[in-house]
């Protein structure tokens, strides 16, 4: 008779099968890393520039520069670029973050040559046509106005402002009029200063064909792309004072968005791993205390979670949810009760077992395949870390105890300096 009551035997993960990169330095100083793996004949070629919103002289410059790379270059119009990208079915992905921008291309190996040539053309020789820029900003402004109607979006942007202050690029909240300000020259100057080989690195991942290294060094390593002079990142004072609350009233809302959290530190801090694990128990996965209480027991929300975000020069913790406007007050009470209990109620045996096993499996999954591995490797490069950082995480996870979790909660997730934003009614 089959025993359906008890779980089948299961094992804790054995370790991570890292794909460690092969490194090459091109003549112009560009560092290139190759991560080989996968089952299908395609690659991702990603260029990362430390040219995020942190580095920009005024709002939206980094975002616009990155997104307008594809709208015109010395030898191609926007129309030609789009036509080539689509014909070679090269998927171009541009992401603009606070600390860096990433420009990557996913392409079948059989179309690699024209796709790489085009990537180099876009990144090295963009022209930022005036009319393309105006039209892009006009469309983005529309999206911005739509987002202003979303309680979740409002809570997120006001929260960052509370945590870092409106003077700091991590805290600055974009305003509708900002979309009218950038000029072509701003973008060209930003590109000239920050999109240079010594301020960049390149990660190639997937089933790497033999000719790829030569293609990369031909397109990205030549004398046509040199540093002007090494750019110096700006410095800003970091705001951190007291606890504050903001209430953004939206009379039409049927739900309120809640965001609560505080400024902490990034993944280079010695307590980062235990903080990350403590956060997971609190609100970092479906089995977490917040989700089990506020969604599964109370039914106040479709979802609630918390997270630790790592930025190059700081880091922060936040809790996020959208709840029925009628249950806003009890939901807030429950969130604060869970914050208090995190330092007083030890994790039970099953709670801890579940947490450790889940995080172990989830960590293994986050390294599944060459593209996932390239993201994890990018994280190391951005923060100047090596693979021992991930080994340390596994070690911390293996040795975590209810006492370490409560102590971490006491040290870092207490109410001191906690900010609260509610958008809705």
């Amino acid at each position, binding site marked *: 008779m089959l025993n359906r009551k008890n779980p089948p035997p299961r094992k804790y993960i054995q370790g991570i099968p890292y794909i460690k990169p092969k490194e090459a330095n091109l003549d112009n100083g560009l560092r290139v890393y190759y991560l080989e793996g996968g089952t299908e004949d395609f690659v991702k070629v990603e260029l990362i520039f430390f040219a995020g919103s942190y580095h920009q002289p005024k709002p939206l410059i980094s975002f616009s520069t990155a997104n307008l790379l594809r709208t015109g270059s010395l030898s191609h119009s926007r129309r030609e670029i789009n036509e080539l990208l*689509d014909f070679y079915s090269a998927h171009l992905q541009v992401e603009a973050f606070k600390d860096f921008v990433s420009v990557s291309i996913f392409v079948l190996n059989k179309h690699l040559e024209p796709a790489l040539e085009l990537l180099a053309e876009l990144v090295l020789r963009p022209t930022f046509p005036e009319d393309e820029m105006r039209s892009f900003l006009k469309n983005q402004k529309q999206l911005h106005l739509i987002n202003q109607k*979303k309680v979740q979006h409002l809570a997120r942007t006001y929260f960052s402002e509370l945590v870092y202050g409106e003077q700091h690029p991590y805290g600055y909240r974009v305003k509708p009029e900002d979309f009218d300000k950038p000029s072509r020259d701003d973008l060209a100057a930003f590109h000239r200063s920050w999109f240079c080989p010594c301020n960049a690195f390149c990660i190639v991942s997937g089933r790497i064909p033999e000719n790829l290294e030569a293609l990369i060094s031909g397109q990205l390593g030549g004398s046509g792309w040199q540093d002007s002079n090494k750019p110096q990142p700006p410095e800003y004072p970091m705001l951190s004072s007291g606890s504050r609350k903001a209430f953004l009233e939206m009379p039409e809302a049927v739900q309120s968005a809640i965001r609560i959290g505080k400024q902490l530190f990034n993944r280079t801090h010695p307590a980062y791993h235990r903080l990350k694990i403590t956060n997971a128990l609190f609100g970092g996965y479906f089995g977490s205390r917040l989700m089990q209480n506020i969604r599964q027991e109370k039914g106040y929300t479709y979802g609630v979670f918390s997270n630790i975000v790592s930025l190059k020069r700081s880091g922060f913790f936040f809790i996020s949810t959208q709840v029925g406007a009628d249950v806003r007050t009890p939901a807030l009470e429950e969130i604060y009760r869970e914050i208090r209990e995190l330092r007083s109620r030890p994790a039970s045996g099953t709670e801890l077992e579940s947490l450790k096993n889940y995080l172990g499996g989830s960590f293994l999954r986050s390294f599944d395949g060459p593209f996932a591995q390239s993201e994890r490797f990018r994280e190391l490069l951005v923060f100047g870390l090596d693979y021992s950082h991930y080994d340390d995480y596994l070690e911390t996870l293996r040795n975590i105890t209810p006492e370490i979790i409560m102590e971490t909660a006491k040290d870092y997730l207490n109410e001191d300096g906690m900010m609260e934003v509610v958008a809705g009614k």
Partner: protein
Amino acid sequence: MVSYKKHTLDNGLRVIVHSDGTTPMAAVNILYDVGARDEEPERTGFAHLFEHLMFEGSVNVDRFDQNLQNAGGENNAFTTNDITNYYISLPAQNIETAFWLESDRMLGLGFSEEKLKTQKNVVTEEYRQSYLNQPYGDSWLLLRPLAYRVHPYRWATIGKNIEHIQEASLGDVKKFFSTFYRPSNAILSVAGNVQPEKIFSLAEKWFGDIPAGTPHVRNLPREPEQDGTKRSSVRRDVPQHQIFMAFHMCERSHPDFHTADLISDILSNGESARLPSRLVHDSKVFSEVNAFVTGNLDPGLLVVAGKPHNGVDIEKAEDMLWKEISDLVHNLASKRELDKVKNRVEATQTFSDSNVMAKAMNLAYYELQGDASLYNYQKDAYSAVSQEGLRRLAREIIREENMSVLHYGLV
């Protein structure tokens, strides 16, 4: 080419396995052949509400999520108008945990009034969060009943209204389970670092003794041919007008499906496609425009949606949109244009084949349509589409009598 092995248990459960030795993970997918189209018109949103209850414990296992997390796994599910699909990703070494959990909830659920009540509230919040509290969130709740008069595609998976969800009873839940959640109505697919023989024996061990149940015979009304443009307009607190045009088209398994899909690709897949290139970038009348097919198992829709910039005359914007799409009726698309969208289809499928979860889901979904091997014929089916075939089908679909237009406007 995704290779696989298939085995059917005596109780009718179909099992499909794809081995991929490059990953330490395994993906386990169970597709139940039930969706919102199988709901009673006065009990809509039920298939999706039921999906939530599948996580609330089964006859022998109290906590589905916690037990899966204990094996390093994570999971989720989705409900569409056609199917309900549950999927798990976990380290391959712990795959038996997925069989234990999935088989127990196919055996029977741990129904209770209290769990039902909580999940009714969760789904109500989901309704509010995704459909009511978002700009344009209710557009599909409006477009479906405009385009469909009799077929159950006239309601969305979330349901016609919140009242239907609140009225669901425990009796409804039990009846739904015994009708649809039977082995003969399900497909189990596994992809990852696994051996087919081992998976078949695990399937036999955990699912083999579940009673087959009575197969459900689906008998849905066929949507009659539309005989004139249908129009509707609403006003909401949104920053920009949005125009939707929906055209009836064939079902997923019809030989014309791939042609219809390429029509939508020529219109809007990629920045160089006709609608973004001409209406967003060149004439700058729209800020956003999109075309896609719903890809349903019963006859679906080709939908074109666009947001004209504020200040643009709406009638003029609609005319421009119509002019672009109806061009496919009058003129042949160029060979290069067709090659371009075929290249994109090939790349998209190759990118998706690099992911074991996508492979498991696709194998199950094509098995439901008749045979998992259909998955490997998709590239051929797309590459067989001709310029003339495209125009012939455009003539059938892109007609004013076959069109429903929704204007989602500003207050």
